């Protein structure tokens, strides 16, 4: 049951994007088409899972002796994972690689992934708790990306005043989405 709550908490109640302001670069940069948004979300989930596992191993066996190296090792792991994912996708599915294009390297600077690793450690999650945390966080991120993409697709074909166009409108939409998700806050107390 605990795992379920960790998942739901990370995905919806404390949604990484709408509650913690993480993963904003892809959120505002990428999310114009539902399709790409969804695929990027999946790529993120995958990187998060690997990062979670690596972070757990690093933390349990090595970082005891040098906690100040935590940041360094985590970011190197993330950068390497993204590189690896990029190469794998390129080999396995060149079409997918073309579709995601530039967005893949951007996953490295996605604060959500680093945040995931750091908080997983500070919350002391076990191996499996960490996995559910990563799944939840990634799903929440994907959810936010897809919602935003859907709304923006609609907005593309509507009449919008000049000054609102572009970034400003995205932020206002995000603000309203964030408010909507705040409604989930009380769920956690049932745990």
């Amino acid at each position, binding site marked *: 049951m605990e795992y379920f709550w960790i998942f739901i908490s990370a995905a919806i109640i404390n949604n990484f994007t*709408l*509650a*913690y*302001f*993480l*993963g*904003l*670069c892809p959120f*505002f*940069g990428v999310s114009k088409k539902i399709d790409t948004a969804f695929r990027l979300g999946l790529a993120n989930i995958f990187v998060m899972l690997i990062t979670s596992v690596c972070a757990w191993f690093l933390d349990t066996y090595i970082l005891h002796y040098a906690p*100040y190296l935590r*940041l*360094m090792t985590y*970011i*190197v792991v993330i*950068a390497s994972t993204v590189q690896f994912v990029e190469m794998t996708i390129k080999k396995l599915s060149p079409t997918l690689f073309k579709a995601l294009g530039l967005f893949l390297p951007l996953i*490295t*600077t*996605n*604060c959500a992934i*680093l*945040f995931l690793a*750091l*908080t997983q450690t*500070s919350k002391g999650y076990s191996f499996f708790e960490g996995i559910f945390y990563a799944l939840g966080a990634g799903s929440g991120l994907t959810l936010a990306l897809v919602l935003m993409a859907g709304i923006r697709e609609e907005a593309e074909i509507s009449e919008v005043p*000049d*000054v*609102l166009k572009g*970034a*400003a*409108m*995205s*932020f*206002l939409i*995000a*603000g*309203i989405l*964030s*408010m909507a998700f*705040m409604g989930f806050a009380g769920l956690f107390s049932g745990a």
Partner: protein
Amino acid sequence: MSNQPGLYEETIKGIWRENPVFVQMLGLCPALAVTNSAINGFAMGAASTFVLVGSSLLVSMFRNLIPKQVRITTFIIIIATFVTVADLSLQAFTPLLHKELGAFIALIVVNCLILGRQEAFASRNRLPYAVGDAAGMAGGFTIALIMVGGIREILGSGSFFGVPLFGDNFEPWVIMILPPGGFLTLGVLLIVFASVKKRSDKRKQVRLES
């Protein structure tokens, strides 16, 4: 580099014309996450300035020695070192601020602004220009953070830098210091800047035509 703008231009551009937050839309995560008050925004800006200027300094100094293939990794190592130093220093000297900023100090390392400046500028320019560019960008970043933080604090807590502004009867607009407030504040600021720019562009147009 014959037409390269002077040191002053390179520095000042980061403050307004190429402001990292309002124009380039970089470093958004910290810009929204820790700007629930002016002092938090300032602290995050200061820490980011330390990291950006320090990293640019080192990257520029060693730019001819870093092979192209490993440049991103080397940049990240340098940046992460500065961030860890900032993290430890804050924890030692200002534990309260450190608690407020929390995990976001560590997240400075993935602030696209910092890595971006290394890649786009510091690794290709001489030391004074690299430092100037870094200082300007960092300054613009900090100003943006203080603006967002200040607005959210005034509306959401009724204070500015901790100093209460209104009397006891002020009912704070709490949502401003919650996540939606961050998005909304930045959105409104962008609208304001867009309008200002539109008017000033129009004015320039009119002047040109007359």
